[in-house]
């Protein structure tokens, strides 16, 4: 049986009960102009709009890689040896927002424009709980 998971910080992404389900990002949509935002906000950021009619929505989990890097230092806050060195990407969500988050995999796998899928990654334990962050993983070709 899989261990219970909690987000490193609440309010940014879902943690599905089904460990095989992809998490989604917690964002907002402006009901006046239709613009989407991540993370959640209560006033539309567009200078032409500034509406206060924003509703909570879930974004992703798929996205397109806009840019990437590979960091040659440990991931801050992680106690796992495999996080010494990690990818980081800017990911364009289909709804519009761009996010920057860690990437699964190695640098050779990353290509600008490739499709990615959101996933949860444990970075350390708290008793019986896994503390998880959100990251993106390159989709297998044809997926």
């Amino acid at each position, binding site marked *: 049986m899989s261990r219970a998971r909690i987000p490193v910080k609440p309010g940014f992404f879902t943690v599905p009960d089904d460990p095989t389900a992809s998490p989604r990002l917690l964002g907002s949509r402006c009901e006046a102009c239709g613009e989407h935002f991540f993370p959640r906000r209560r006033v539309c950021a567009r200078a032409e709009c500034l509406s206060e009619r924003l509703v909570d929505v879930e974004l992703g989990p798929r996205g397109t890689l806009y840019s990437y890097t590979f960091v040659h230092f440990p991931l801050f*806050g992680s106690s796992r040896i495999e996080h010494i060195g990690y990818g980081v990407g800017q990911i364009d969500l289909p709804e519009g927002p*761009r996010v920057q988050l860690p990437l699964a995999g190695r640098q050779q796998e990353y290509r600008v424009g490739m499709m990615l899928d959101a996933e949860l990654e444990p*970075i350390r334990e708290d008793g019986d709980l896994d503390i998880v962050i959100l990251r993106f993983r390159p989709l297998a070709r044809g997926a």
Partner: protein
Amino acid sequence: MRDVAILGVGMHRFGMWPDLTNGDMSREAGLAALRDAGLSFRDVQAAFVGHIFSHAMAGVRVMKEFGLTGLPIQRVENASATGSAALREACWAVESGRYDVVMVLGFDKMTAMIQQSSGTTDAGNLEDAILPAAFFALWATRRMHERGTKAEHLARIAAKNWNNGALNPMSQRQADALITPEKVLASSMVAWPLTKMMSCPIGDGAACAIVGRPELARKLNPGRPVVKVTASHLGSEKYARGHLFVGPVVGPAQMTIDGAHAVYEEAGVGPKDLDLVQVHDAFAIEELEYYELLGLCPPGEAEAAIERGDFERGGRVAVSTDGGLIARGHPGGPTGLAQIWETTLQLRGEAGPRQLARARTGLCHMMGGGSVCVIHVLQRE
């Protein structure tokens, strides 16, 4: 801005100074600036103080080093652009007619801040898990994808700044031999494609400028060229699709484009009139991008301009003449004022071994947390 001059400048060399306090460094920088202006602290009518990492009221306490004269003291903070933002407030205080002599002081001990936080670092936020250099590396990767930029272009920028820094006695990094692009590329990888030598160091330091009326500058130092501040801009982000809200961000490129347009219009100059430029080169990719965003070369031509040596001392427009953030250092609060120190000395013809043959108009650009952009134009009268 029509009636504001830099009366004096002073610095404490940037570096790792575990045995010095903010007060020690600030006293040295401030007294140097007052001596340079030919003024006493009794003449200072107001002070704007910039620091990022110290506790509340640190600015007022540090100012006591100069004496307790009752003057108004105001803290200004805007991340990396703190010193630049403080200068802007001082310029307006003079331009408005309220004061004749205003001190701008910036200081920080980034080393102390990192010692304090290192034991308790916790990835409590999504963005805190990621090394800040990564966000600048993302800009570089995208540039490589769109324009075919090579790591060698970034290495040439860094090597230039390291070699400029070696000629600046206030520079944190003082290489004792010529730095080649090959050496920059061979230094350890931080976040691909950025290597350690393409990245600014952490450090401590202080810098000070005395701002006042140009006629006072003429009276205090007859025969010395008067350096005027002819434009000042501070802008924040405008939302556009794809805006990044989470993380220590690079900031929208449009902020620098808009700021450059604003100062060129205010000063009545164009990018072709600039003899020297200082930018927020915390990482080499930033300097490359700012060449284009400030209009120093057309979009897409930065790589060719780098290969021609356009931005070296002696090139078309010298950039980061004091070593920039990469070599001179970037403690935080004082960084923007180090740019003013360098530009003022160059415009006066007092920059020693790194003096440019022609220096009449200079531009100083700083970003703060990727969320504000501050630009000043300084001109020799």
